[in-house]
């Protein structure tokens, strides 16, 4: 177990391509898979590996994230000593980079008792055993281990993700970006394992030299100085870096075969639990191939869709290939296709809304579609 390793979740993630869902929240707290938030996957992986000290370096707009994290109890991270902490980026400057906020909290790193540090992102949706990564790292004796996945669907599923250039011995020689040229690629999962002292050295250098505003760039520029090795992850992976990627990954989860690669009995995914009542399937409903959250009331037709908790589907409504967030009401007789409805939106009876299967239409939060007069 990774008692000697601290986890740092870096939420300095590019949200430009998923702004429709990040207007009121961070990418890390976008709802996913009927009852989770994006960050639950990495938090659960850290917790399942026995990491007991996790720092989340957050950005502005983090109310929904701090609500969700609370004291960390759902992930067994509410500890007397250490446990989970959420650090905010400066509130003055909305677009500062991670080096700035890491440096401002250097004491946290220095005072933490752990020998190792695992730096991760949140948007890589996977279920990874970090103990394997640690074993690999220790066996190699190298300075830094970066986790990657070799994929043959880079154009479809990993557009704009970072890639690694790995030599025959598994050494990382460089890092780039997947701009959709090749289907085969080594996708960087933005998970970096190293001794804490190396992290602090890198950070100090960033600050004193002023050369890098993002810590990972400092790592990529030190490949000649540090021995950096790549660890191959072979499980299911998706990167939620755009609205399309989010929609595609969500729809994929309706396939029980894929779902089961992510939600493993031996390494459960945890999330904040609620006191919602069971879902009610009333007369006249027809639900097929869908994920349904507790507390939902279904009177209409739901196909190939994901409903979060407390969603109401009215009589005669037809919901196809949609993602409906918590508390949304879909009025009687509505027809929705390829729609993402944000939390608590209220779609008036009889509305017909249609998005495209590659470009879903997002009904934004707290915006009621005006009833026709």
């Amino acid at each position, binding site marked *: 177990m990774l008692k000697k390793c601290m986890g740092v979740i870096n939420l300095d993630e590019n949200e430009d391509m998923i702004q429709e869902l990040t207007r009121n929240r961070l990418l890390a707290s976008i709802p996913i898979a009927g009852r989770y938030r994006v960050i639950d996957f990495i938090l659960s992986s850290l917790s399942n590996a026995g990491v007991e000290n996790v720092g989340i370096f957050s950005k502005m707009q983090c109310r929904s994230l701090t609500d969700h994290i609370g004291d960390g109890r759902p992930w067994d991270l509410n500890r007397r000593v250490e446990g989970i902490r959420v650090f905010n980026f400066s509130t003055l400057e909305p677009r500062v980079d991670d080096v700035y906020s890491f440096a401002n909290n250097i004491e946290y790193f220095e005072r933490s008792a752990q020998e190792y540090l695992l730096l991760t992102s949140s948007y890589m949706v996977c279920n990874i055993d970090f103990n394997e990564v640690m074993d690999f790292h220790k066996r190699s004796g190298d300075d830094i281990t970066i986790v990657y996945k070799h994929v043959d669907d880079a154009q479809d599923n990993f557009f704009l993700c970072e890639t690694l250039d790995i030599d025959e011995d598994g050494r990382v020689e460089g890092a780039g970006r997947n701009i959709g040229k090749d289907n085969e690629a080594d996708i960087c999962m933005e998970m970096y394992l190293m001794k804490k002292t190396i992290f602090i050295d890198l950070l100090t250098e960033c600050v004193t030299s002023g050369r890098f505003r993002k810590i990972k760039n400092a790592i990529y520029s030190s490949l000649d100085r540090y021995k950096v090795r790549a660890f191959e992850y072979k499980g299911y992976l998706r990167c939620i870096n755009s609205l399309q990627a989010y929609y595609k990954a969500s729809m994929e989860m309706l396939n029980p075969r894929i779902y089961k690669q992510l939600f493993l009995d031996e390494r459960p995914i945890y999330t904040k639990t609620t006191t919602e009542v069971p879902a*009610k399937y009333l007369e006249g409903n027809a639900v097929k191939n869908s994920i349904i959250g507790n507390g939902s009331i279904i009177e209409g037709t739901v196909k190939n869709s994901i409903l979060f908790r407390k969603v109401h589907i009215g009589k005669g409504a037809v919901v196809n290939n949609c993602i409906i967030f918590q508390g949304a009401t879909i009025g009687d007789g509505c027809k929705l296709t390829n729609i993402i409805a944000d939390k608590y939106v209220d779609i008036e009876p009889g509305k017909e809304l249609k998005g495209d299967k590659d470009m879903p239409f997002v009904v934004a939060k707290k915006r009621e579609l005006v009833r026709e007069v």
Partner: protein
Amino acid sequence: MRKREVVAMILAGGQGSRLGVLTQNLAKPAVPFGGRYRIIDFTLSNCSNSGIYTVGVLTQYMPMELHTHIGVGSPWDLDRLNGGVFILPPHQKASGANWYQGTADAVYQNIPFIDAYEPNLVLVLSGDHIYKMDYNKMVAFHKDKGARCTIAVTDVPINEAPRFGIMNTNDDLSIYEFEEKPRHPKSTKASMGIYVFDWQLLREALIEDANKPESVHDFGKNVIPAILERGEKLYAYPFKGYWKDVGTVESLWEANMDLLDENDDLDIGDPTWRVYSLAQARPAQYIGNAAKVQDSIVVDGCEIHGEVIHSVLSTNVKVERNAKIIDSVIMPDVYIGENAIINKAIIGSNAIIRKNSVVGDGRNVTSIGLYEEVKAGMVAN
């Protein structure tokens, strides 16, 4: 310890033998209910919602799952700095070790626990009833009447009255007579087994009762009649609303089916009176392509490929293709194989119903025990 006005004591130690195989290895209050609850959640949530944060739970019979469920009480906000929920099993004393001999004895043996909080009032509750009740209203009634003991009563049909403890009252609701299961009932006010006592009175009555060799140390049979005989002021508090003692397989099934009623009086979804429970980290429910779910309630962790009609499915139930579940209650972690038919049954937790088997005949309620296996092609009625 900080003084408390009210301390609640929940009786949760009974065997519940009328639930048969469902309580063979499980205390009745820990029996799963309504998809994601256990029976005791209702009483614990009532305490929490009523602002009563000092609660003793008296356990004895097969308590392990019950103890695990309650834990430190955080699901009900009962993990408090002062007070909170306390599990009180029988324990050894300098004078010897005794099991709880009856409901009154269980409270008697824990007099020091109650004394520590110096309460004015003690609320004695059952851990095996399904209802939502604001105990504050009953306490206010108790004080208003200047009562020394108040018993909550619910109106039952006169033909059912002989099954209950019946309170015969004057116009002002003071009780002049208590009849346990009367053949010819004079009133329809049935005791709900919910009592408010002035602690000093109850304390005396419990000590007195403990010293009576002929007593069976039961609240209904011994303590209440003795207090009445002393000429103390007893009042009946009329409770209106859903209340069900789920002591039999039949009534447990009925109470579950009541949740499917659109005009369900219990209304577990009431946002002003939440029913809390220990939540599990299971993925959201998945309804497959071939599935049909009608008139039913389903919770997280379920995976359904078959047909579910007018039934209650609990956490983590898997229903395979062409299986058919009608008018049934499926408890957590049950597996139901292909082509199995379940008709009017309660299936205990972790049971395995293999393919092509038939459980229940749609007439009487059939129950299958915890971890029981119904082999492929078998018929179990």
